[in-house]
Each structure stands twice: as structure tokens, then as C-alpha cells.
């Protein structure tokens, strides 16, 4: 009845041997990945009626999903043969992993511009398809979707930075918002307001390191630069960043700053109490007076950002998303038809930005990046009551037109927050100088991120 020792050992050896062979043979990272990305050609279908098939499209959950769901309904009216399986997915958590593993890949997805550059090898090269629209797309959006001269995302929204301000407080202090044309003017206006009411800390600076760095990049973009150039070379050591960080330091030293985390309790309270008067932030801040600021709803207004130098650009981009088509999509041509419809046709972008059942006044947290959609005289969303009936569309499209081009966001951008984002916070807290922020951040980003990417 006893089992020979050799048999047991032999079995274990065999099992281990098979395991080791399998592991050695199949454990090569990246072995199954195509190094050369595919180029997507123009769909062969000649009419909308002949396009047939089913596509799976990933989108974010929440109200935006409902808005896109309705817009996809319009697409299906134009392309009745295309069935769209529209799914709400935690894209930040799932898309990159799905692209890497290559299983259950959607035919198209919404994605942050910041993520596209790092995964371009898993995406279709859309250069030829976008070519007819190229001249009509905001230069910033084209640049952040371009890697090595090829375009990997269908540029969607543009998020211009604006100067949000309390109109009533400026009036009381005798400050004309139209006169705030440079960042020095903004400091002067803040000092005037503080002299009238010493309790105010008029300018919002954000306490969240990630958002703080995104904001810093908006100010850099406004000056035509960004953290890295198109080749991935660091450009932190520059007059533009030094100027921006110096301005922050001046604002802090003048006690003109409320340092609060974006729209958390401390921020909302100081916005509603009148302590904060100026919020230089992206257009998506419009959500705050519409939904969060109960006491000051109707008192906020928007203007273009001040310029860094007289006559300079009056806005920079802060955030934004595009649509990607994975290289392993089953029906990439049909996905392109959907995104072409949404981004480059009037019924498409109007269905998203115009008045709808989710947003009766229209979607006012960004503007399209396709210039024919950006006509000041033909607004997609309506004037906003929470901004005293101001025509935010006109302000936003005029600001958006001045946004300079940029460079694709490097794959390490999010990791750089541990250095530049944290050090910017230290500057705001008076623990670092602008030179320290630049030197310390550049050293660590170069060593830990760029040299290893």
C-alpha cells in the first residue's frame, strides 16, 4: 500500500518542470504586443445607410454618460445600421489594463488627453482620417493627441482657463474687471480688495497637489510651454515657469491667497463667505456657482485669464479628453463614424453641448475643440442664471481661440505630481522658493521619471 518515494518525487519534479517550462516560455512581457501601431483607413462604406454592424463604446458614468447616450441616439438616426453598445465604465481604472491585456477591448473610448500619449502603441493611428479636419481643430488639442507626428485621439473638448470673479465685490471696491489684463493687474486688484476688507484673501490657490500642478500647466500653456517638449525633454528650467512660480510667491507674501482644496468644505465656505474673490480656473468651475455655491449663486462672473505679458494669450487649457480607437477594436471603422459624427458634424456636437433633458441650458463645462462649432454668435449652451445671466459661451470661445499649442503629455506626467505638485504646495506654504521648486523638481523628475521612461 505504501507509495514509492521516487514516484512522489517524480510527480513533483514533473509538475515543477512543466510549470518552469511554461513560465520560461510564456512569461515574456510585451511579447504579444505589436510594436508597430495600425493606421486606420477611411471606412469603405460610401453612405450612412450601408454602414452596418455593432460597436462597443466605453464612456464615463454619471450625467455625461446620459448626455452621450442621447447623442448616440442621434447618431443612430443617421446610421441606422450601426448598433452601439454604450457602456458606463471606470475608464481610469480599466482602460489601460484592457489595452495591455488585449482582451474584451472596446471599439472606442473616451479618455483623458493626459493618458493617450503613454498608450499610443495600443491605439489606431488616426492621422489620415483626421486630416480633412486638421485645420479646424484647436492647435492645443491636436498637439496633445500627436505622438511622433501621428494623431492617436479624436480631439473632443477644449477646457479654456478663465478668471472667475465676484462682480459685487469688485464693484464695491471700484475695480473694473475689464482692467485686469495682466497677472500684475490681478495682484493690484487683489490688494485693492484686501485694503477695503482686510479679512479677504482674494485669490484661490489649490491645495490638491494634482490639481495644483494641472493648474500650473494651464498657466504654462498660456505662455506657450509645458512640462516636457514633443521629444519628452524637460522644460521646467525656463523663464515661463520661473515667472509663474514667482507670481505665486508674490501673491502668497502679499497675503492675497486662500489655499484650499478644490470645492471641498473649506473652499466652498470661503467662496460663499466672500473671502475668495478671484478663481483663475478652467471653464469647468462653472459647475460650482450652478450647483454648490448657495449664498453667492448669481454673483460670479467669468472673464478671460489675464495675460502674462501685455498682449499675450488670454487663456490656457486645463484638462480635457478625446476619443480613442484601440488597435484591437473589432469594428474600428464604425467607431470612427461615431466619433466623426460627434466631433465634426453639427448635429453631433449640438446633441452633446446643446440643451438636452439632462442639462436644459446645455453642457457648459467645456467647449468643442472643432472651430466651426465655436461661433460666438451661435452659442451651443445658453446664458447661465447662476452667473447673473452672463453669456459664458461668448467668453469661453473667445478665450479658447487664444490657447497656444502644446506638446503631448508625457507618460510620467501623473507621477511628476509627487515632485512638482508637492513642491508647488511647499511654495504656497512658504517653505520653498521658486528656484528651489524648479531645481528640486527638475532633478527628481529627470532622475526618477525621464531617465527611466
Amino acid at each position: 500500500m505504501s507509495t514509492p518515494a521516487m514516484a512522489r518525487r517524480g510527480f513533483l519534479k514533473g509538475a515543477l518542470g512543466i510549470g518552469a517550462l511554461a513560465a520560461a516560455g510564456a512569461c515574456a512581457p510585451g511579447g504579444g504586443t505589436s510594436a508597430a501601431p495600425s493606421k486606420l483607413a477611411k471606412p469603405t462604406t460610401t453612405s450612412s445607410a450601408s454602414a452596418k454592424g455593432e460597436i462597443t463604446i466605453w464612456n464615463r458614468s454619471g450625467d455625461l454618460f446620459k448626455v452621450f447616450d442621447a447623442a448616440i441616439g442621434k447618431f443612430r438616426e443617421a446610421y441606422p445600421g450601426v448598433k452601439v453598445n454604450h457602456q458606463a465604465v471606470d475608464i481610469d481604472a480599466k482602460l489601460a489594463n484592457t489595452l495591455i491585456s488585449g482582451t474584451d477591448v472596446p471599439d472606442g473610448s473616451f479618455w483623458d488627453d493626459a493618458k493617450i500619449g503613454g498608450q499610443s502603441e495600443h491605439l489606431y493611428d488616426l492621422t489620415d482620417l483626421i486630416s480633412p479636419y486638421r485645420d479646424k481643430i484647436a492647435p492645443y488639442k491636436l498637439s496633445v493627441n500627436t505622438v511622433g507626428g501621428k494623431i492617436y485621439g479624436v480631439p473632443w473638448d477644449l477646457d479654456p482657463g478663465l478668471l472667475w470673479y465676484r462682480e459685487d465685490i469688485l464693484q464695491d471696491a471700484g475695480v473694473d474687471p475689464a482692467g485686469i489684463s495682466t497677472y500684475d493687474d490681478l495682484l493690484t486688484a487683489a490688494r485693492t480688495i484686501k485694503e477695503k476688507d482686510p479679512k479677504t484673501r482674494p485669490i484661490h490657490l489649490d491645495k490638491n497637489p494634482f490639481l495644483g500642478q494641472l493648474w500650473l500647466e494651464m498657466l504654462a500653456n498660456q505662455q506657450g510651454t509645458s512640462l516636457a517638449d514633443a521629444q519628452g525633454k524637460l522644460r521646467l528650467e525656463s523663464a515661463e515657469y520661473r515667472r509663474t512660480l514667482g507670481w505665486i510667491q508674490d501673491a502668497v507674501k502679499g497675503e492675497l491667497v486662500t489655499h484650499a482644496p478644490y470645492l471641498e468644505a473649506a473652499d466652498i465656505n470661503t467662496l460663499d463667505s466672500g473671502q475668495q474673490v478671484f478663481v483663475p480656473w478652467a471653464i469647468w468651475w462653472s459647475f460650482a456657482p450652478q450647483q454648490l455655491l448657495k449664498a453667492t449663486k448669481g454673483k460670479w462672473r467669468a472673464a478671460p485669464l489675464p495675460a502674462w505679458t501685455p498682449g499675450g494669450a488670454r487663456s490656457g487649457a486645463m484638462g480635457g479628453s478625446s476619443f480613442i480607437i484601440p488597435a484591437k477594436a473589432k469594428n474600428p471603422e464604425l467607431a470612427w463614424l461615431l466619433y466623426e459624427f460627434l466631433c465634426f458634424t453639427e448635429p453631433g456636437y449640438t446633441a452633446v453641448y446643446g440643451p438636452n433633458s439632462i442639462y436644459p441650458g446645455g453642457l457648459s463645462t467645456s467647449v468643442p475643440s472643432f472651430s466651426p462649432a465655436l461661433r460666438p454668435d451661435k452659442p451651443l449652451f445658453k446664458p447661465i442664471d447662476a452667473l447673473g445671466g452672463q453669456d459664458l459661451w461668448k467668453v469661453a470661445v473667445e478665450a479658447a481661440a487664444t490657447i497656444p499649442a502644446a506638446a503631448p503629455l508625457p507618460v510620467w506626467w501623473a507621477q511628476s505630481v509627487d515632485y512638482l505638485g508637492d513642491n508647488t504646495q511647499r511654495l504656497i506654504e512658504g517653505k520653498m522658493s521658486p528656484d528651489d521648486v524648479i531645481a528640486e523638481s527638475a532633478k527628481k523628475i529627470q532622475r526618477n521619471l525621464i531617465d527611466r521612461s
Partner: protein
Amino acid sequence: MAGLTATTARRAAIGSRRLPRLSPYLFIAPFFVVFAAFGVYPLMYALRLSFTRWRGAGEATWVGVGNYVYLLTNPDFWASLGNSAVMWLLIVPIQVVAGLGAAVLLANARLRLRGLFRVAFIAPFVTPLVAMAQVWIVVFDEDYGLVNHVLGLVGLPAVGWLTSTAWAKPTLALLFLWKTTGFAIIILLAGLQAVPGAVYEAASIDGASRWRQFWSLTVPLVRRSIAFLVVVQTLAVFQMFAEPYVVTEGGPYGSTTTAGLYLYEHISASDLGTGAANSFLLVLLVFGLSLGAVRLLRPKEEVS
């Protein structure tokens, strides 16, 4: 013909002898297949990945021990281990003492409302962590939190519980203690209940006080349970991820970036080779710490 028949019969006999020998292995084979697919293969894959630089696209570049050297010479890596070590000091000793005290109380049959206390201690352990973390964020908010409000009532200044480098770790440690001390109590209570009552009776007859019984009987007899608890909680503390991820995002200034969160940051940034190397370094560290704890807390008779 006769010879052929005999050979066939012999082969059949050998076959029938082999079959019973093989059958146990066939029965346990499904486990090994699943273990190989979901245990060995990912482990080998990760090991090979740790020697490469790969961001999830294109061919991986072989860098030898480059990722390990990078991590071992990177102050951020050591800072993450330091953060976890401080968290360990703030959590495990307190949890062992508090857990043992609570277990002794709950083991007392004369304790009134014993069932209620048991439920109260266990409830946080079964509550979803993210829900508890949200409560922590609200209660310890610097400007509008309940704790600072109470401090304000007695004239004390507000504290940046989650926004200062000095207090963020203790506040997170408190969340971890609140969440997992129920588990510690279960383990220690099970250990206590395995101690025969006759031992205490004999000690009482010999005149040993309650305190003396606790130190000379209870603690030595639940030493295995304490060792198990220390090992499991050491693993948990060094792998701690959800608490800092939800409550502080590793801040302020990386002061709550634990070893587990630091590892995740590499993976979320698609720096997969470094993430894999970090995993193996962490495994080695936790293995060493666990081994040390087991040896240290081993009952004396096993040591001798």
C-alpha cells in the same frame, strides 16, 4: 501463444497496480493546475517583468537588476518603508495589548451584555472600509470636522489631522486600529477559549492572583495566537493601501505613502517593471519580518 498471454496478463497486472498509484495525483491535479495558472505563472511572469523596463506597450527592455538598484537607491522607496514601519509601531503593539484586554473581558462568562460587546467590537471589521474612510475624512476635517469642533469648545487650536505630516500617520493608524481590532479580538478570544479552565482553577487553589494568572498563564498560553496575529497584521500594515488611497492619497508630502501605496503608484503609472521589482522587495521584507516575529514569539518549549 501461451507466452504472449502471460506477457499481456503481466502488463495488465502492472497497469492495474499503476492506476491506483496515479489516481491520488489525478485527484489533486486540479488544484495544481489552478495553482500553476493563477499562482506560479503570474509569479514567474512578475519575476521576469521585474528585470525589464516595460510600460505596457511595445517590447520590454531587459535591464537586469536595474529596477532593484533604482529602488534600493531611491529615497522615496525607503521613505515608503519608513512610513509603513512607523504605522506598524503605531498599530501592532497597541492592537495586541488592546485586543488581548478585550478578549480577556469577553471570555469572562460573568460579563453582562457580552453578546452586545462582541457585536460592537466586530462591527467595524465587517463594515466596508471605504465607507469608514469617508467618515474619517468628515470627522477629522481640519476646518469642519467634529474632532476639531470639540477641541475648539475647550479652547484648543484646530489640528491638521489629515493635512499635516505630523498627524496624518497617527490618524490613519487610528482608522486601521478601529477597522481591524475586531479581527484581533476574534483571534485572541479563540486562543483564550482553548485554554483549559482547570489550569486557572489550579492556579487559584495555589493562591495566584488574577494579575499573576494573566501574566503567568494567559499570556504564555496564547503566545501562538499572538504570534499569528503579529504576522498577519505585519503583512496587512506593509500592504496597507486602501486607507491612505482613499483618505489622504498618500499625502501630505508623501507622509502616508505606505509601501503598498508606493508599489501601486508604479503600476498605475504603467511603470510595470519597477512595480514588479518593488513587489518582490516587499515580499522579501515581509517574509523576513514575519519570520522574525514567529521566532521571537515562539513558545519556550519549541525554542528549547
